[in-house]
């Protein structure tokens, strides 16, 4: 998708800020309802990231399913479960938290060193020279639909059966008393 330059930069910067602040908010806020709302912020910013990388269908699906279904479900679960126990949850900085933050920081550093070291554009030009440059006759959603109905047909059916079975199981588990 050929977005104009300022809109592209605005989407990237705003989405990055939202991801960083929302990710910190999910983990560090003490009240679970606030962390559920900042999870919603993270999901919206993720769908903003999908728009500049030429995937408007995945962005729309992310916005509809994650924000519209999963986040609403999580907010309802927090409201249903969260009595008055969150303020008894003293947020002590234990030794385990320190060790875990050290481990996660080392995971982060060891992930971003190969990202920054790799020359991605060399790989990009070698792969792109193999592909035939052709006119975009079909758009993104049509291409995903063609893939889902031809060569990803069996995984698509399996996913739908898994979703049906898990939703029936969730209802059966939540209503028995």
């Amino acid at each position: 998708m050929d977005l104009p330059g300022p809109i592209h930069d605005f989407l990237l910067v705003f989405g990055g800020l939202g991801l960083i602040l929302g990710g910190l908010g999910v983990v560090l806020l003490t009240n679970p309802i606030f962390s559920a709302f900042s999870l919603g912020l993270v999901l919206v910013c993720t769908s903003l990231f999908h728009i500049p990388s030429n995937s408007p269908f995945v962005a729309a699906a992310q916005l509809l399913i994650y924000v519209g279904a999963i986040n609403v479900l999580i907010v309802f679960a927090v409201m249903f479960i969260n009595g008055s126990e969150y303020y008894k949850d003293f947020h002590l900085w234990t030794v385990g938290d320190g060790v875990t933050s050290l481990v996660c920081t080392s995971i982060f550093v060891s992930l971003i060193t190969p990202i920054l070291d790799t020359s991605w554009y060399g790989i990009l030009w070698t792969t792109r020279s193999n592909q035939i440059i052709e006119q975009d006759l079909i758009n993104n959603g049509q291409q995903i639909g063609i893939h889902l109905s031809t060569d990803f047909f069996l995984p698509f059916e399996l996913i739908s059966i898994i979703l049906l079975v898990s939703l029936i199981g969730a209802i059966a588990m939540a209503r028995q008393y």
Partner: protein
Amino acid sequence: MMLEYVLVLSAYLLSIGIYGLITSRNMVRALMCLELILNAVNINFVTFSDLFDSRQLKGDVFSIFVIAIAAAEAAIGLAIVSSIHRNRKSTRINQSNLLNK
């Protein structure tokens, strides 16, 4: 430049999701951190399918599958949490010993 930026943000999201998944004491917050990890996976799928596979876009199909699995996982997880809460009146992770008796 954009590729490194997006990949670093996705690595940040993955590591903070792992941190929250390990250290959170509330089960619902652990599920939220699981969603963060799945979102990091989604960002990587979509970015790489745009840059390296822009003719076929198979990464987008995989991200659709990941979204569907995340929906199933959230439904099952929250049903389990509400069932535990009904039996135990608490959703603390370190106090749940239902398999213990």
